[in-house]
Every structure is written in structure tokens, then in C-alpha cells.
């Protein structure tokens, strides 16, 4: 056990040197690192949101909201399909909680209705199951003419899954325009999106930017009334939208929008040249510009409403045809809200409403406090354990301390190289690992003492101590690893950081406290030929 080949010795020191090299960049500032030659490792540890401050937001696609909107458009499609020539008479078309229902006037048209409505079942392509066998709606027509188009569970799931992917793209575009460092946007499970943005001072603004649907539509205004009366007198084919500035005011607008956010080519925040008020100027794409030109030509003198997420931002009167395809949205913005609206319009709307189901925000000052406290705790623990080991095991304790320092370097080096996220519980994990790191040394040294007391020679005792403690060390490390894996699985964010450092620590302590200490002890035994073991 005490013999090491030259290559093995070299290998062990090389691993430690690599660990030290990898952990060194953490002690320098970014600027110093940038000046160093490129072949040196420059990665620094990734700090978790709890250490550098930041926002953690878990969003969930609002299925109910999505379904409601989908059913609203579906009932329009159903109406359109039935009104084609030859017309199919129906009554009582309504949206049920998960579908659309109607009654055919003439039960003999059941087959014709089936033909017309079957395309609306909307087979969804690109199904994960292959074959594209999923249909969004189930069509059911009873013999007496009651038609039921109900959303299928599988179809809804697939839709939600698509919505998550689309939303992630939209959110990425939105956050990237904020110019913050390295946001992380990930899918979680079937219908959730995890957004983590480090180092942002204003979480409310982020939430506003990420969570807003930002569905922009332009509608012709039919009439406006006080919100209190909006329930009683709704004109046919209209939608009631409340004014953003004055919630007591409701506009009845054409249900069909003139333009949507998809028709936009660009949007920028700017200022009104006369009043100097912030506003958002936009430019339409060519088809949008044509449509807008045509409509404004026909409706000069009438108001149209600019609607964002079902609220009327402003309702200007069309003074002249707008043919150039560009325009402005004004509506008591501040410079920042105008800027944010421009970002939202450029990035596009979310395909469905997202709800925050979990939020954790850490201010940067708290994070800095935590880092400082963590470092102090690390240093104090290292010194305390090192002194304790020397007190109890003398020279061999000092050897264990060298291994302990090597272990710290190695752990930090591995964490840095893996770019694993360090959290505050993660720091606790490092400190705790130091306590456990010397455990293997304790096991070995106690074993050496026992062997020595049984009358073995110095070399024999050293050899037997290392050999016989090995099985125990493996056992104790593996069981600790089981707990770490369970923790990793359980945890999100900070707790997962704890599990990661524990797991890395378990592996690195196995290396340092077993191999490194053995190497040092072996060299010591070879060169100073001790007559007794100072234990």
C-alpha cells in the first residue's frame, strides 16, 4: 500500500495542480483575467441567485385561459363552416367549459355537418408520439342533431407544450433586450417555464416584461359607454374593452381586429416632437401597411382603438388615410413604460397567459452579505479543523491538513470547471465536507494506532492501517453519496447547490484523504525512516 510508482505519484500531484489552477481564477478580478494569456483557465465560479442577487420566477401556462380563447375562435370557425353554401341551419351555438356545442335545425343534415366540421378537429402535426395521431378536438354528433366539439386531453397537452416552447422564445427575445447578464429560461415539466435572471435591481419590471401577454390589436370603435352600463347594451359582433387610463370608460369595438401584433415590423420608444411626451412609434410590414392604408381610407373621421391585452391604450380619430405604414401610440407613458412596450411589441406576444406560481427575489446587498459570511465561515472552519487535527495527530495531522487544503482547492476547481452553480447552502456543503474530509484520515490513523498496539512494525502498521480502513472509507462515502443524490433530486435552486457540492466533496475527499495522505505518509516513511509513529 505504501509503494507508489513514479507515474502514479506524478499523476496525483498533477491532479492537485490542475485543481489549484482551475480554482485560481476565482481570486482575481475579471479585468485581471482578461489580460492573461488565453491558454490559462479563466472560468470563475457561477454564483447562484441567492449569492449575487436576482430573480427566480416559475411561470405556468394558464390552460383555462388558453382553452377559453381557443374555443372563442373555434366557435367562429364553426359558424363560418356551417354558413357555407348550402347552408346548414343551427341554433344554440355556445361554448361549454371544454368545447363548443350547437344543435342542428334539421337532423337530416347530420352527415353534411359531419363533413363540414371534421376538418375543424385539427389534427396536430409533429406529435411526439409519431404518426401525428393526435387531434385537437373530438367531434360528436348525436342522431337528434346535437353537435359537440370537445377539446381532447392529448390535444390540449400538445398545444400547451407548443405554447411553452413558443413562450420561451418570446421571453428570451424580451429579456435579451434588457441587456442583463446571462438570463436562464428553461422548460420545467409539461407546462412550466423557469426564468432566472441574475443581478437585476428591479424585479417588478422584469415580471411585467416577462409575464405580459402583450397581445396588440387595432379595432374600429363602434361606440363608447360608461363601464357600469357595458353589461346591458352590447352591440352584436362587438367586444367590450375597458380604457387603460380611465377604467370607467368602455369601448365597444369590432370583434374582428384590423391589425394584430403580427403585422408589426418594428417598434421604438420615442418622444412627441411637440409635447415631448414619451410615445411608441411603430412600423407595419408591407401587408399590414396595405391593410391599414385601405381601412383608414374608408374610415376617415372615425375613431379606432389600440388595444393591448384587452385594454384600450388609446382611441385616436383617423384624421387622414395612413398610407406609409407607420404610426405612433401615445397614452401617458413614462420613458420606461414606453421603452418596455416597444420591447414587448418587437419581441411579439405570448401565445397564452402565463401565471407566476413561484417567485424568489434576492437583493444584491443580501447576496453580498451572504458571500462574505460564507467565506468567513469557510476560513474559520478550515483553521479550526487544521489546528484540531495537529493537536490530535501531530505530524500525521499536519499531513491530513495538507490533504484538506488540497481538497478545498480541488472542490472549488471542480465546481468552477463544471460551471456548477454555487449557492449559500452550497457553501455550507463545502464547509461540512471539510468536516467530513478528515474523517477518512481519522479512520486511517486510528487504525494505524490499533495495528501498532498489536505489535506491528512501523511500516507494517502504516500499510495495514491504510489497507484495512479502505473498505470502511468506501462504505461511509457511498452512503453519504446516496443522501446527496436524494438531495439533488429533491432540491431546486439553493438546495440543489448543496447536493452538488456535497457530491463533489465526497468524491474529492476520497481522492485527497485517501490517496494524497497515503502518498505523503509513504514519502515520509521512505525518507525519514521513523522508528515510531507519532500518534
Amino acid at each position, binding site marked *: 500500500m505504501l509503494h507508489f510508482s513514479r507515474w502514479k505519484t506524478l499523476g496525483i500531484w498533477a491532479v492537485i495542480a490542475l485543481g489549484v489552477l482551475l480554482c485560481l481564477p476565482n481570486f482575481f478580478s475579471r479585468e485581471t483575467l482578461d489580460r492573461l494569456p488565453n491558454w490559462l483557465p479563466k472560468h470563475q465560479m457561477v454564483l447562484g441567485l441567492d449569492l449575487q442577487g436576482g430573480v427566480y420566477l416559475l411561470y405556468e401556462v394558464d390552460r383555462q385561459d388558453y382553452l377559453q380563447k381557443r374555443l372563442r375562435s373555434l366557435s367562429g370557425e364553426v359558424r363560418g363552416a356551417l354558413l357555407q353554401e348550402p347552408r346548414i341551419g343551427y341554433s344554440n351555438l355556445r361554448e361549454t367549459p371544454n368545447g363548443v356545442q350547437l344543435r342542428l335545425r334539421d337532423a337530416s343534415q347530420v352527415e353534411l355537418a359531419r363533413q363540414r366540421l371534421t376538418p375543424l378537429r385539427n389534427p396536430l402535426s409533429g406529435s411526439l408520439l409519431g404518426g401525428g395521431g393526435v387531434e385537437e378536438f373530438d367531434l360528436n354528433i348525436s342522431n337528434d342533431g346535437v353537435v359537440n366539439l370537445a377539446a381532447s386531453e392529448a390535444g390540449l397537452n400538445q398545444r400547451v407544450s407548443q405554447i411553452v416552447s413558443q413562450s420561451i422564445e418570446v421571453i428570451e427575445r424580451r429579456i435579451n433586450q434588457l441587456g442583463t447578464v446571462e438570463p436562464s429560461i428553461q422548460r420545467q415539466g409539461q407546462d412550466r417555464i423557469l426564468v432566472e435572471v441574475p443581478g437585476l435591481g428591479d424585479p417588478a419590471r422584469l415580471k411585467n416584461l416577462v409575464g405580459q401577454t402583450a397581445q396588440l390589436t387595432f379595432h374600429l370603435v363602434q361606440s363608447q359607454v360608461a363601464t357600469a352600463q357595458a353589461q346591458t347594451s352590447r352591440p352584436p359582433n362587438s367586444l367590450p374593452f375597458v380604457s387603460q387610463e380611465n377604467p370607467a370608460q368602455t369601448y365597444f369595438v369590432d370583434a374582428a381586429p384590423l391589425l394584430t401584433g403580427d403585422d408589426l415590423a418594428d417598434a421604438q420608444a420615442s418622444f412627441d416632437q411637440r409635447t415631448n411626451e414619451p410615445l411608441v412609434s411603430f412600423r407595419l410590414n408591407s401587408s399590414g401597411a396595405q391593410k391599414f392604408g385601405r381601412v383608414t381610407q374608408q374610415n376617415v373621421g372615425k375613431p379606432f382603438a389600440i388595444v393591448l391585452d384587452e385594454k384600450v391604450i388609446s382611441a385616436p380619430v383617423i384624421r387622414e388615410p395612413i398610407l406609409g405604414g407607420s404610426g405612433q401610440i401615445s397614452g401617458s407613458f413614462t420613458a420606461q413604460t414606453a421603452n418596455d412596450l416597444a420591447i414587448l411589441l418587437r419581441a411579439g406576444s405570448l401565445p397564452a397567459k402565463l401565471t407566476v406560481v413561484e417567485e424568489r427575489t434576492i437583493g444584491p446587498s443580501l447576496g453580498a452579505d451572504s458571500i462574505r459570511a460564507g467565506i468567513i465561515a469557510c476560513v474559520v*472552519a478550515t483553521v479550526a479543523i487544521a489546528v484540531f487535527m495537529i493537536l490530535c495527530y501531530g505530524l500525521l495531522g499536519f499531513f491530513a491538513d495538507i490533504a484538506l487544503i488540497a481538497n478545498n482547492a480541488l472542490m472549488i476547481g471542480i465546481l468552477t470547471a463544471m460551471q456548477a452553480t454555487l449557492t*449559500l447552502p452550497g457553501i455550507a456543503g463545502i464547509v461540512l465536507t471539510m468536516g467530513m474530509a478528515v474523517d477518512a484520515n481519522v479512520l486511517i490513523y486510528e487504525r494505524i494506532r490499533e495495528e501498532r498496539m498489536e505489535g506491528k512494525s512501523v511500516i507494517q502498521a502504516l500499510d495495514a492501517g491504510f489497507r484495512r480502513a479502505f473498505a470502511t472509507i468506501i462504505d461511509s462515502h457511498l452512503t453519504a453519496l446516496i443522501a446527496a443524490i436524494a438531495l439533488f433530486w429533491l432540491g431546486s435552486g439553493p438546495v440543489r447547490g448543496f447536493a452538488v457540492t456535497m457530491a463533489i466533496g465526497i468524491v474529492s475527499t476520497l481522492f485527497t484523504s485517501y490517496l494524497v495522505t497515503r502518498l505523503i505518509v509513504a514519502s515520509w516513511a521512505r525518507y525519514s525512516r521513523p522508528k515510531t509513529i507519532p500518534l
Partner: protein
Amino acid sequence: MKPLRLVPDGTTYPFMKWAKVRTPISLLLIVVSFALFFTVGVNSGIDFKGGTVMEVGGHSQPIDIAEVRSKLDALELGEVQIQSIGNSNEVLIRVATQPGGDEAQQQVVQKVRAALGETDYDYRRVEVVGPRVSGELAWTGTLAVLFTIAGIMAYIWIRFEWQFGLAAVATLVHDAILMIGFFALTQIDFNLQSLAAILTVIGYSLNDTVVIFDRIREILRRYKQMPMSDVIDLATNQTLARTIMTSLTILLALVSLYLFGGPVVRSFTASMIWGIVVATASSIFIGGPILIYFNLRPEKTDAAVKPAVKGGSASKPGAVPTPAPRG
């Protein structure tokens, strides 16, 4: 320099004989833990219960808790706890889950910020956990604990005989119960970190127990006819120095964390300090001794072949400090 010996060499503490004291103490602790858990209960944090926590600083000015309370009471948010932390410059505000789903929880933060204002206070930490997420966290937490216990049992069962597996699990369940009792007694926030603390202590407790089991197995092989209770006593005594030493180094690390690691990890480390003390005691007093009930050896060897033990150890003088014969 003469090294410090915390545990003298060749101890022969009759751990098995102390059952009369040990069993009632640990039963009493378990009963007390259960009683606390079912009467007072643990103080579930927002991770498992849902709700809102806000850590609010006063820009280095002392915060008037009464003023904060009166402002927040006007919001009618149901159960609101306001507690000063660290120094008087910071308060922790907890608001229970609001009726009305996830969006209602979101409005709590807006309302509180509006009521307190943005100029006088500094919002250092805001956490909102919706009712569904907290339910899921509680569920995965339970699964993680069960998974750990099952994994550990499986590992010990593969590595040792099944009796050791059962004894190890009995020990760590004992430790986990005592830790939960600690959470109920101190009313420390019971959250994901607390669960992490419990799982870590479980891992550690096992580590300690396994070292003793390893030694028990070794002695069982070496001295085929030594009575079981002597084997356990011998193994526990031989590993005692290591058990104490390792616990102390870990406690050194934990105490540094507790004193210097800042308020966020303080409750986490406090529960772990208790856990390590319990785990150390239980691996010495429970893990090994409990094996006596699991007939690891056929009954006959215990009484019939006692003389052969002496023969066995006599051939290797001083090999093992022979335990005092049981009276």
C-alpha cells in the same frame, strides 16, 4: 509534542449493559418528539405551506415594527407575522396563503410594497410560493426522504446482511424523528433547507453506524465464537475514538457556520448540530446494540463455546483488548 487523546486507548465501556438507561432515554425522546410534532407541530415555511416572505431593510435605519404592522393590518391579508431579524434594521414579514389561487399570492407583494412605499424601505428578499407548487415541494420532499431510506437499506443489505440494514434504518429513523422534534421544539422554519439538513444527518448517521458495523463484521469473522454482546461492545469501543473525533471535526465546521455563516444558514446549521450530536449518540448506543435482537449468529454458539473464545485470543496476545466477561 504529545498528541491529545480525547478517548483513552483500550476503553472497555460495557455499552450493552447500559440498555436499562439507554432504552428509556431514547424512547422518552422519541415520545417527546412525537408529542411536540402532534401538539405544537413544526413551523412549516412557505416552501411547504405556500405564502409570501419578505425581508425588508430600512436603509440602515431602525425599523418601527409597530408602524409596519399597522400599515400591513390595514391591508387585511389574514395571518401576517412580522419579526425583527439580525438587528433592528431588518424585519421579516410573512403572509399566509391568500384565498384565490396563484394570482392572489402575486398581489400580496404589490400590496405590501404599495403600503410601505419604495423610499423608506429596501426589499432585500421576496419569496412567493403558490399553493400548488408548495404542495408539490412537500410531496417531492417526502419522496426524497423515502428514497434515501430505501437506497440506504438496499446498500447496506447488499454490503452486509439484512439485519444490519434493518438496524441501520432503525437508527436513522430514530435520528430523523428526534430532528423533527427539534424543529417542533424550536419552531425554526421548516422548509426545503430543513429537509436537506435532515437528509444530510441521515447520511452522516449512517456513515457512523456503518463504521461500527464494519468492525462488528470483522470481529465476527475473526472471533467466531465470541458472544454477540461482547462483539458489539468490542466493536463500539474500538471505533469509539474515531466516532468521537469525526463528530468533533464536523461539529467544528458546523459551529463556524453557525457563528459566522450569516442568518440565512443559521437555522439550517442549528438543526444539523443537534442532528450530528443525536446521530453520534445513536450510532454508539443504538445502531450496534440493536443488532443483538437480530440473531446474527445461531443461538448455540453464545453459551456453549465460551471457553474457545479465550483460546482464540490467546493465540494472538494483545491482538484485541479482550472485553470484560459479562456477568
